[in-house]
């Protein structure tokens, strides 16, 4: 119990203190994106990770929530309604909930492929409709509002990004807490049970459909909250925010982070936001790297980064984690060099300039020397990685086996 409170307090602390350490405009804008992504990815995990519902259309709830939130901003501006903009995420959440209540009433009948296909169909349907109904969705240009016209909230008018950050941090903390608490309730636990075995759940008194429906509505609500945060942060929203690409991105985030663990999507949201905003400054190929990262994750880390961390639980409990450090370095360093050399070659083949700087090395795409160097480096490090694998495997087994296991 104390441990749990400590974790939540440090989460709150991190949220509050981050802008003190990184206070550049870029950093604050990244934190705001992260906040939105965290809520969105966690809500997606309520569907796929906790409830076993693979959705290809989760952006619908994010987007609809966001659109209504922007419209609400406009209404506040023209004094059609009167409330503080701090409540905007709640507006988004209610719209997301409303959409989920309606769509979930027929889409949660089955999980699996049928659910995935309905979510895809609904997603495409709404994304396409948004381009037709220009009055509400604003067509390609989207709709925009202004968050600063509302009644000041204790003197804060949200002119500065950092003020928006603290507002977002408040909502993120609240949303995270409530989503966690949901997993600890009968409805949340039965969502896991229905994910594992919908048939058996029906024989212990629960309608699998009803259980899915509740999770689905909750996920819609929190996706809408994320959409509301998006509206508040960017003050505009377009069709792109409810189409298949956004739905795909949230799947990537949750999966890379690790579906089976509550913290997984948070990790995924942080990694992807950082890649998005930092990597894109260095290379326009970052989406390619993201695709490679995703496919590799599905192939080799099916439980994501969080799963990779949790794999070490046994070794940690047995106090053998330190025995893994050297083997990890022996494999990790050549593997890292290999990845860097491959990336260097990819960048060279794509580069239009004469020479560029890569990790402190000056590479010339036109020169044979650069290519030769990278090729040798790549093959040597690949060889080193491969030959280091047996010792890693042995060390892993050593760290995870019981003292008596060797005799078996």
């Amino acid at each position: 119990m104390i441990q749990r409170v400590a974790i939540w307090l440090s989460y709150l602390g991190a949220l509050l203190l981050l802008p003190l350490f990184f206070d550049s405009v870029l950093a604050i804008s990244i934190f705001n994106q992260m906040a939105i992504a965290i809520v969105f990815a966690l809500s997606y995990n309520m569907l796929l990770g906790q409830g076993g519902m693979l959705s290809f259309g989760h952006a619908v709830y994010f987007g609809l929530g966001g659109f209504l939130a922007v419209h609400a901003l406009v209404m506040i501006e023209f004094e059609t309604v009167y409330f503080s903009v701090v409540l905007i995420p709640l507006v988004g959440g209610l719209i997301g909930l409303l959409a989920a209540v309606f769509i979930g009433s027929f889409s949660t009948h089955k999980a699996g492929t049928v659910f995935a296909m309905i979510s895809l169909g609904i997603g495409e349907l709404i994304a396409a409709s948004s381009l037709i109904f220009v009055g509400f969705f604003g067509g390609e240009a989207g709709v925009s509002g202004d968050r600063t016209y509302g009644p000041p909230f204790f003197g804060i008018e949200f002119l500065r990004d950092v003020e928006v950050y603290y507002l977002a941090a408040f909502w993120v903390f609240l949303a995270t807490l409530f989503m966690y608490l949901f997993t600890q309730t009968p409805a949340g636990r039965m969502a896991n049970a229905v994910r594992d075995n919908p048939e058996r759940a029906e024989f212990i008194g629960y309608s699998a459909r009803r259980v899915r429906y509740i999770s689905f509505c909750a996920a819609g609500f929190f996706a809408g909250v994320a959409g509301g945060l998006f509206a508040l942060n960017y003050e505009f929203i377009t069709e792109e925010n409810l189409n298949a690409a956004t739905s795909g991105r949230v799947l990537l985030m949750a999966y890379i982070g690790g579906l089976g663990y509550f913290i997984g999507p948070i990790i995924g949201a942080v990694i992807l936001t950082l890649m998005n905003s930092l990597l894109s400054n260095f290379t326009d190929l970052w989406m390619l790297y993201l695709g490679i990262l995703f496919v590799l994750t599905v192939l080799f880390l099916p439980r994501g980064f969080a799963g990779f961390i949790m794999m070490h639980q046994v070794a940690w409990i047995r106090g053998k984690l330190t025995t893994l450090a050297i083997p990890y370095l022996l494999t990790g360093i050549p593997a890292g060099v290999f990845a860097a050399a491959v990336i260097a070659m990819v960048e060279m083949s794509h580069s239009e300039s004469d020479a560029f700087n890569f990790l402190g090395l000056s590479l010339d795409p036109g020169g044979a020397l650069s290519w030769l160097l990278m090729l040798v480096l790549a093959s040597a490090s690949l060889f080193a990685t491969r030959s280091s694998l047996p010792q890693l495997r042995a060390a892993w087994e050593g760290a995870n086996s019981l003292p008596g296991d060797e005799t078996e």
Partner: protein
Amino acid sequence: MTLLSLRQVHKNFGETAIIRGVDLNIEAGERHAIIGPNGAGKSTLFHLISGLHHVSSGEIRFKGEEIQDKPPYEISRLGMARSFQVTNIFARLNVFENIRCALLWPEGLRYSFWHLLGRQDPLNEKTLAVLEQIGLADKMHYPAGELAYAQQRALELGIAIASGAEMILLDEPVAGMSHSEAEQAVDLIRRVTQDKTLIMVEHDMNIVFEVADRISVLVYGEIIASDTPAAIRANPKVQEAYLGEVVSGA
């Protein structure tokens, strides 16, 4: 008092008639075994009673209420629990959660998303008691999918009995167990189904005669005899249809 009654129950899959006019009465407190050769329709009969399949025609009453058109979860809420022939547990949840889930509805928590499970003391105490009963208390933090086969069977049984349902349907509870494991399981079944009404499908005749106080013989979708174990053993029709070969082979 008659707890469960079947009247002229028929079930067809396409053209094939699997259950052909079954009449059956189960009294409260009875330990009833259904036996019969492979393909006689025993599991189908269980599926019909528990709501997994629906009858083609006929009537099933449980506690006087018609249940033949109800979904499994409504029948379960009336106080009927069942286990499965093929282990059917929540593989990624741990053993404790498996049992706790089975207790949620009977404890009145329904679809609540405003109660925290950790705060439900009676619920958690009952869960632990069931775990003690089925002998899995020391494994309660293991994911159910990682248990050994016999332990998974015990958990399968535990999920069925946890709710404290008045009527329990067990579909081949000791299938695939070794002799000693089966003996332990039978002990367990006896203990946990005291004061309950039990219907079980079982192939092992020793266990059937040990546990049941009434036996029905199902052959090609029809019940050809329903009587006490002694009378069933003596029934020439039964011996001809089914028992003879098993008894002589045993």
